């Protein structure tokens, strides 16, 4: 272990400074540190003493085990503060200053506290209200009645003003924006119920609505909380990804290990990842028998075994017993993790067009209810002012269009959360509607139905071969020609590279590569059809030529994915027509199609040909989902109704897709259309329910049949029903 001071100095570097501390005015910087081992006030006092000479301001929270510090960067440094804390016998922890994450956590706590208070108050108020119902009959004495009424007021005050405060805040915000949404009638009815009741307590007579108001707050905030939780299921994935971000890494250098900021890491640096730590960048594993938890990235919960040469993605955890070494390949925004985060952020911002329409309807509806409530009060007033108030309250409470506003977003959120856990990220939420109608699925071949990486299955020497030309030497020459390239075919030869010198490399798109190896002219490229077909029809032939004469032929074959058969069968079971479109030759494509059970096959298709085929299908009324790797088949994906990409490596954010398959499996895809159909059905059910409920309850409320407490119960139960219905998704397994 190196000295402590050297470890902390990394946090003073400019690359890291702004992610751990923030400017706080007067030239001071502010930082929030976690402190392990601090349990009591005397610990806090000793830390304060240790920091006093270095920091301008120290605020220690013993319960949260944090210290908020302000320091002058000209006189002190973060590493000095951290060193002082360590010297005092405690272990400081530096957090990424993710303000929004902290804010979300505070908001979630506050919401839970409000619900708890709402429940406590509502129960108490209802108990106290019970004896006063029909008080003429029960004959309660006046002082007791007064006590009951005043106590109700006392208990309803936190129940309405603290627990129900968010409703007032939201209503005020939407009014300031010159909108009326569903919180406006809620806030108005709460204000009327509470205000009128308080006035009647003071006046000493008249019916009280404290019970209705507190119950309304309790049930409504319960429904909101459930709603928030189900949204959280979808954003929770993103949250966990963000939480997995690291700020520093251990770099293996000539002089030993050093702790560096992520921004300092360059490509090809070698990093050491201790057991239990997260991989900080995408890279290649250098050690065998590593055990990794990649649940964040693929949804696969079991640890996976990886060997030297495997690609590790930032965010996976080293759950093995030993440290592993990784050579850095993709950094910062290029890492898989950063790209998934970007895609999910983009998706979270999108509001599907149909949702915007529903929101507008809910707004108009809220306005309508306010008008109807006023009308009800006006009509009842000449008959009985007491009853007019109660009926108007019932109208406001009963027909709040909460269910209408909840119907869509909840079902969407629950659905995309479920899909994310299966390994399908919804990059564009609006696609869920079309996904439900998919009846044709077009697969690309390489990288989707097959594994991305073909292997050399067979090497065959041809007419141009001389004595001394061996299969191994031909493979080495091919590997030399393909060395600078990274497409799958080039990678297939990498294992055979013997570092032969190569010069004058030329690559002609679609024609292959030519170059000089040990000063002899070679070229490598596709079979031009002059030779007898390969023994294995599923293999792709690559021919190596010397001075234009065929020297050797390699049979390359990408093994089919283990789960392709099951995925195709499952899609067909759902009534989808499954097709294979590929640019490959007929024979290998047909062999693959037979192996995985696809009947409809088009081989030797150009990108334009694929798109034309797609347009023709769409012209005859089919809704088409295209599945590809997201790069080579971009035109096809762009034209499809639902574009599903299975991106490999770093190309995630560029993939123009609606759905992203992030696990290395096709199975989750088969669950997606079925799930989308369920989501659509839930939305329709919810909207139908909301409309029917309001149509039924509004006349009752206006007619004065429905009392405010019944309205509160009915409305809240209606919202609850909508929430639960939206969450009631089938347990599909990927």
């Amino acid at each position, binding site marked *: 272990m190196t000295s402590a001071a050297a470890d902390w100095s990394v946090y003073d570097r400019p690359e890291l400074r702004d992610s751990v501390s923030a400017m706080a005015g007067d030239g001071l910087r502010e930082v929030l540190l976690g402190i392990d081992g601090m349990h009591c006030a005397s610990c806090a006092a000793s830390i304060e003493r240790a920091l006093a000479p270095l920091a301008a301001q120290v605020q220690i929270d013993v*319960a*949260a085990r944090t210290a908020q510090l302000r320091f002058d960067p000209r006189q002190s440094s973060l590493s000095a503060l951290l060193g002082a804390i360590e010297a005092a016998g405690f272990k400081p922890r530096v957090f990424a200053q993710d303000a929004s994450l902290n804010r979300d*956590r505070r908001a*979630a*706590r506050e919401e*839970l*506290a409000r619900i*708890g*208070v709402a429940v*406590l*108050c509502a129960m*108490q108020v209802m108990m*106290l209200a019970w004896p006063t119902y029909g008080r003429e009959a029960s004959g309660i004495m006046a002082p*007791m009645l007064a*006590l*009951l009424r005043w*106590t109700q007021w*006392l*208990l309803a005050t*936190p129940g309405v003003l603290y627990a129900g405060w968010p409703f007032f805040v939201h209503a005020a915000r939407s009014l300031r924006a010159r909108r009326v949404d569903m919180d406006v009638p809620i806030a108005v009815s709460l204000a009327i119920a509470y205000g009128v009741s308080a006035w009647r307590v003071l006046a000493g007579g008249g019916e009280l609505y404290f019970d209705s108001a507190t119950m309304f707050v309790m049930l409504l905030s319960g429904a909101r909380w459930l709603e928030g939780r189900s949204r959280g299921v979808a954003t929770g994935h993103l949250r966990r990804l963000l939480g997995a971000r690291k700020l520093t890494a251990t770099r293996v250098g000539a002089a030993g290990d050093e702790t560096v900021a992520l921004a300092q890491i360059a490509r090809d640096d070698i990093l050491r990842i201790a057991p239990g730590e997260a991989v900080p960048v995408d890279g290649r594993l250098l050690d065998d028998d590593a055990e990794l938890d990649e649940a964040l990235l693929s949804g696969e919960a079991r640890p996976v075994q990886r060997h030297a040469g495997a690609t590790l993605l930032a965010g996976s955890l080293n759950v093995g017993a030993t440290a592993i070494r990784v050579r850095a390949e993709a950094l910062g925004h290029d890492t898989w993790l950063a790209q998934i985060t970007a895609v999910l952020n983009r998706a979270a911002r999108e509001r599907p067009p149909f949702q915007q329409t529903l929101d507008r309807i809910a707004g108009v509806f809220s306005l309508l209810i306010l008008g109807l409530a006023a009308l009800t009060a006006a009509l009842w007033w000449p008959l009985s002012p007491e009853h007019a108030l109660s009926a108007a309250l019932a109208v406001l409470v009963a027909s709040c269009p909460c269910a209408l506003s909840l119907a869509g977003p909840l079902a969407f959120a629950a659905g995309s959360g479920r899909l994310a856990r299966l390994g399908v990220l919804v990059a564009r939420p609006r696609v869920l509607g079309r996904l439900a109608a998919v009846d044709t699925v077009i697969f690309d071949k390489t990288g989707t139905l097959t594994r991305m990486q073909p292997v050399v299955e067979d090497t065959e020497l041809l007419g141009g071969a001389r004595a001394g030309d061996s299969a191994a030497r031909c493979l080495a020459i091919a590997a030399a020609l393909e060395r600078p390239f990274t497409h799958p075919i080039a990678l297939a030869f990498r294992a055979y590279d013997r570092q032969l010198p190569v010069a004058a490399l030329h690559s002609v798109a679609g024609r292959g590569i030519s170059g000089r190896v040990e000063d002899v002219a070679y070229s490598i490229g596709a079979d031009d059809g002059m030779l007898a077909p390969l023994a294995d029809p599923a293999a792709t032939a690559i021919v190596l030529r010397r001075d234009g004469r065929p020297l050797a032929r390699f049979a390359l074959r990408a093994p089919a994915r283990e789960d392709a058969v099951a995925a195709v069968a499952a899609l067909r079971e759902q009534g989808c027509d499954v097709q294979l479109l590929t640019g490959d030759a007929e024979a290998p494509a047909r062999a693959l199609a037979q192996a995985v059970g696809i009947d409809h096959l088009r081989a030797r298709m150009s990108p334009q040909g694929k798109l034309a085929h797609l347009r023709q299908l769409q012209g005859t009324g089919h809704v088409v989902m295209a599945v590809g790797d997201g790069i080579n088949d971009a035109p096809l994906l762009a034209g499809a109704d639902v574009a599903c990409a299975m991106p490999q490596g770093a190309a995630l954010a560029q993939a123009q897709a609606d759905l992203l398959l992030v696990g290395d499996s096709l199975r989750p895809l088969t669950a997606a259309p079925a799930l989308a159909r369920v989501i659509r059905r839930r939305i329709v059910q919810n909207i139908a329910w909301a409309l029917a409920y309001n149509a039924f309850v509004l006349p009752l409320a206006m007619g004065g049949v429905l009392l405010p407490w019944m309205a509160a119960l009915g409305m809240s139960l209606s919202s609850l029903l909508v929430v639960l219905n939206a969450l009631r998704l089938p347990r599909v397994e990927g």
Partner: protein
Amino acid sequence: MEILYLMIPLGVVLVAAAGAALIWAVRDGQYDDLDGVARRMPDD
């Protein structure tokens, strides 16, 4: 029934205590992660 003059204020005090305890527990973060603890157990 005179006992109610004692019991009702007492009830209010108890509710206030329960509410305060709940708010403290929630703000202390005790409800932040309800299943993480159970999952972490095998790691310790």
